[in-house]
């Protein structure tokens, strides 16, 4: 199973996310803020527009969730498979050789 220090580190990650939320803020994207800074320059025009944009915030969050879900699926599968493989090796080592 996970080591004790893993639990502490996960708790740390949770705090890092929660503390700003509790302190409050607008929480707009940093990418967008940098883009605003560029757009504020006189005479700026993007040289190209996105080929396709998610039509709404809902569709955007659909693809973001899909991205996270696909990644988590593979990471979880790899962790489970590694664990299963180790268990099988351990059992094989414990079994008296016939």
């Amino acid at each position, binding site marked *: 199973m*996970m*080591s004790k*220090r*893993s639990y502490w*580190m*996960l708790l*740390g*990650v949770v705090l*890092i*996310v929660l*503390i*700003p*939320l509790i*302190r*409050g*803020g*607008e*929480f*707009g*994207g*940093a*990418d967008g*803020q*940098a*883009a605003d*800074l*560029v757009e504020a*320059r006189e005479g700026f025009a*993007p*040289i*190209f*527009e*996105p*080929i*396709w*944009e*998610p039509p709404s915030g809902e569709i*955007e969050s659909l*693809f*973001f*969730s899909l*991205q*996270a879900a*696909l*990644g*988590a*699926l*593979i*990471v979880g599968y*790899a*962790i489970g*498979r*590694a*664990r299963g493989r*180790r268990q099988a*090796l351990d059992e094989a080592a414990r079994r008296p050789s016939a």
Partner: protein
Amino acid sequence: MHIMEGFLPASHALGWTAVSAPFVIAGALRIRTIIRDTPEARMTLAASGAFAFVLSALKIPSVTGSCSHPTGTGLGAIVFGPSVMALMGVIVLLFQALLLAHGGLTTLGANTFSMAVVGPWVAWGVWKLAGRLGLSFAVSVFLAAALGDLATYVTTSVQLALAYPDPASGIAGAALKFGSIFAVTQVPLAIAEGLLTVVVIEALSGKTRDKDRIALLAGGEK
């Protein structure tokens, strides 16, 4: 760290693409070699790419009152060396450019350079240096992943500053201005990414001695 579609002048867009392309090709060749020579490492390789996929989808609030996301490229860089992450990073960036209008095709080269080249190389360099300094496994992984994450955002700031220098304070002034948006927001997220990278490497390598973990994941003998 995503520079939006069309937000770099054509010369910069082409320049960064030319700089990044060899890294991506080298990464693809390296991945092919790993799959051919160490099939045991395939699962870790997939997990390295998937970790970057997850982390770069998570917009996380920061103490600056704005949101940003980690990159997740440190894990693969630590286990396999930095080159493999160049190709993995491009895949993540393409997904986001095409389906999320996040980043873009004209800025793909610049975004690849910051997230998939500089980040992994810094992570790998810090990992090697930390090992030489005798730092513990967990501290080394943490520092490597966190500083790689931060380096990505510093790179984006410099890229934007090169394209849009401040009329009064020049490139350095502009880099500070973009850096104050990106790098400061990124500090807590980089710490979170460092911690998560240690947790996932531990989970993938299971009960084994710290010094054997990376060799185990890279497909070495137990």
